[in-house]
């Protein structure tokens, strides 16, 4: 017992904090999850697999499961194909304007795909801009059904939104490959694709995996985009529809469990296939030699590729923007009249204004929670030897692998008929859901800060007579302040634009956050879609601004936030 105590820093204060953290995770992650599991496996007569038998015997349900898996796989595949060449060109070559292109690549991240879907719908509809343009030009004489069943439209939009995350991870993985290891291979006679296949890519795999799994989970469980495209045959939409009548139809539980199981399955499958070992890179030699100046023709090629891809990525934004300033747009390629009145209406329209107020309130609260929890957890992980350290780490990172859909569904189910019942007042659960979902970013941001600032600096302060608490406030926090700001900014803006939690948890109009208001407005005729687009544009600006800010703080380490 005493040796166990000696191995850990367990002061009464630490113990109290730990206890509180455990309570939080158990109440708001483990309990809802286990509630969902018990709902899926237990009927009134006890343990039963009846729901899963039903699910698997219905060809309709199986097709829906397959659709979602295919969606995830397709998006992962295409983001990889898009990002790999980008990462190579931008990491390995130096050319004028490199920083600018690096920024351009990240732009599509600033648009939640579900907002982009509004713009895309406008452009790709049966009598949307693209078809009308092609008809005018005489390329086609019948409008093409671009959206088809909706599957590829969803893939396209998610690829355009998610490839920056893949790019950030691949670029970081590539930059992390010790150039000496490639030089050793060249020295042994390898070059070109052979070098890439035998040495470079295997060494990138752990980094690739980290990005790929995030992209997969995101696409696999995305709710907003399929909803807007009215592509209903995916698990996310099914679950969304089942929330409202949970009590009559417990299939929802089984679907959520299926999502969790499939997520875990793909997580471990890819981890096995792609290698889970993080290679310890030994001391590094000549890092500079890995980057070579690009020849003028290569520079032109790089610009063409990056600008081309960015242009594709911006199309949905453009669609949203056009919609938001449309005075009249009927059967024409571009709007025939323009107006900015929807932007002012955002701030006068009752639902729009209310939702902005709601979102600001909810996001501010959730960000505060994230700051307190995130800094505490990161500090314990980075500086203290607390018992259950690895479990704490795992719990804090779990929301990255846990779809927002699952969390929201679990909350609705587990806390119904309690003081936290979302049907009566969703505010507490919304705040907690936002906070839990973004906690990993905050923990990572703070942890990175603690790691970068040496313990020696703190020891020096204590050596000169500062108490531990004083050291914390006067030395540690100022040193990691930039990281905290960046983490908080990201947490806040992502909370503002959180989709699945908001759609599921906020059930009455008076509690609608921005995203749910946009969704509701889209469904209304008259000027609903235009106000929704204007709100989408404002959200885009908010996210762009905060990503830019966070990027200033993190510079090249941005990729480390978006990985499993």
């Amino acid at each position, binding site marked *: 017992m005493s040796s166990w105590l000696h191995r850990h820093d367990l002061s009464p204060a630490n113990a109290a904090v730990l206890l509180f953290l455990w309570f939080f995770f158990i109440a708001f992650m483990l309990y809802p999850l286990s509630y969902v599991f018990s709902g899926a496996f237990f009927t009134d007569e006890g343990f039963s697999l009846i729901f899963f038998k039903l699910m698997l015997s219905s060809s309709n349900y199986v097709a829906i499961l397959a659709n979602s898996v295919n969606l995830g796989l397709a998006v992962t595949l295409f983001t990889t194909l898009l990002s790999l060449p980008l990462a190579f060109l931008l990491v390995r070559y130096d050319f004028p304007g490199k920083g600018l292109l690096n920024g351009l690549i990240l732009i599509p991240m600033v648009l939640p795909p579900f907002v982009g879907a509004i713009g895309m719908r406008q452009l790709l509809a049966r009598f949307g801009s693209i078809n009308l343009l092609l008809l005018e030009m005489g390329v086609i004489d019948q409008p093409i059904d671009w959206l088809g069943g909706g599957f590829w439209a969803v893939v396209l939009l998610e690829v355009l939104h998610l490839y920056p995350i893949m790019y950030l991870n691949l670029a970081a993985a590539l930059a992390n490959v010790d150039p000496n*290891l490639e030089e*050793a291979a*060249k*020295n*042994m006679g390898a*070059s070109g694709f052979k070098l890439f296949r035998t040495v470079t890519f*295997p060494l990138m795999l752990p980094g690739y995996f980290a990005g790929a799994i995030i992209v997969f989970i995101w696409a696999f469980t995305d709710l907003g985009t399929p909803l807007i495209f009215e592509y209903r045959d995916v698990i996310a939409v099914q679950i969304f529809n089942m929330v409202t009548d949970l009590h009559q139809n417990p299939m929802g539980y089984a679907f959520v469990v299926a999502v969790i199981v499939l997520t875990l399955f793909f997580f471990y499958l890819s981890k096995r296939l792609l290698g889970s070992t993080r290679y310890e890179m030994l001391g*590094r*030699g000549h890092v*500079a030699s890995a980057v070579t100046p690009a020849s003028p023709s290569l520079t032109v090629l790089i610009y063409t590729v990056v600008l081309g891809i960015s242009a594709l990525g911006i199309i949905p934004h453009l669609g949203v923007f056009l919609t938001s300033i449309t005075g009249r747009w009927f059967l024409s390629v571009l709007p025939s009249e323009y107006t900015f009145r929807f932007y002012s209406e955002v701030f006068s329209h009752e639902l729009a204004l209310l939702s902005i107020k709601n979102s600001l309130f909810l996001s501010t609260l959730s960000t505060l929670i994230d700051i307190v929890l995130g800094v505490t957890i990161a500090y314990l992980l980075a500086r203290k030897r607390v018992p259950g350290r690895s479990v704490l780490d795992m719990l804090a990172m779990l929301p990255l692998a846990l779809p927002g859909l699952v969390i929201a569904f679990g909350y609705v189910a587990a806390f119904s008929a309690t003081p936290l019942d979302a049907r009566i007042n969703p505010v507490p659960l919304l705040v907690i859901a936002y906070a839990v979902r973004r906690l990993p970013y905050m923990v990572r941001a703070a942890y990175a800060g603690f790691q970068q600032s040496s313990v020696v600096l703190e020891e020096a302060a204590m050596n000169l007579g500062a108490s531990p608490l004083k050291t914390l406030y006067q030395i540690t926090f100022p040193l990691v302040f930039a990281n905290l700001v960046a983490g908080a900014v990201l947490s806040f803006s992502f909370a503002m634009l959180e989709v699945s939690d908001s759609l599921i948890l906020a059930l009455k109009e008076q509690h609608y956050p921005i995203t749910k208001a946009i969704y509701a407005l889209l469904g209304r005729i008259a000027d609903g879609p235009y106000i929704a687009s204007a709100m989408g544009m404002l959200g885009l600006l908010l996210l762009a601004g905060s990503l830019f800010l966070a990027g200033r703080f993190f510079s090249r380490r941005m990729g480390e936030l978006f990985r499993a």
Partner: protein
Amino acid sequence: MTSVKFDGVTKVLGESRAVDKLTLDINPGELFFLLGPSGCGKTTALRLVAGFYIPDEGGIFFDGRDQSRVPPHKRNTGMVFQNYALWPHMDVWNNVAYGLKMRHVPEDEKRKRVSRALETVQMLTYADRLPNQLSGGQQQRIALARALVIEPDVVLLDEPLSNLDAQLRLEMRAQIKEIHRKIDRTMIYVTHDQAEALSMADRIGVMRSGQIVQVGTPRQLYMRPESAFVAEFIGGTNLLPGRLEEIGDLLTVKTPAGVVHALNGVKDMARGDPVLCSVRPESVRLEPAEESGDVPPSDRINQLTGDVESIMYLGDSEQYSVRLADGALVRAVEYNPAVKKAEIGDRVVVKINAQDVVVLPQEEPDE
């Protein structure tokens, strides 16, 4: 066996000329050392041979064939990297076999050669380990086996022992020298450790600011340095400034502390030149001042008077620092020091033999 020639090679890295008009001939089969302080350009020179850099000026020749623009994978050099650069995702066997795979060596010959290479470095039993399961010394030997198994024209070693502890370093010195004797291939070895270079090299090229300042056998460099830089860098020395008074059988130098006669000196120096007398600490003898008779200090030849300022006992030797009358500091090393020669504060006479003094030109101050 392959000769390697640098012909007026310049390589600019960033702002600095890492290698500056370097001309150097390395003989076939030689174990050649590039020795110099960090930042002198020795690693850049080695990487030019491997093909990781293309010279900005001049050329690199193997046996007279211009290699300057041949890409690294076609040069057939085997390099041992400072941090070993073992691929962490391949086991020991596949690390060593990699170069043979790239050369499409048939399977059974490949197996034989990899086994032989691993045997040479006594690592055959570790064939299925991953690099991160090996100690530093073991990784080092795998890196060596990987470089040797392809039977390269030139073996390149970039500070291969710098990450090992002192004891292992001594063992590996002997092993590498033994391997060089067996395989009989040209080896270029980069280090900043003069003891490593002296103990292993056939010849050494001492580098400074991207240029070779002196090439020679270890004995030549130690006994006949041609510059104060080489004298100080290799072995450490005392440098007494003075003016060259006479050139005859002996060189006579007048220093503020007394007159020094020297047997050796760099050619093309003229009477009246400012010079430095290089005297190795181990060739300096200390004697108590009262034993040196009653000749006035300024008339004594190769005898300088001073006070003992500090003493350091190292077991096998004892180092004395003596402050001369003019303020210069002379270090003297006494080997097998059974009895203390003097105490701190004692007045002593520093005695030097003329054959132990090398007269060197005074250098212009460092830019």
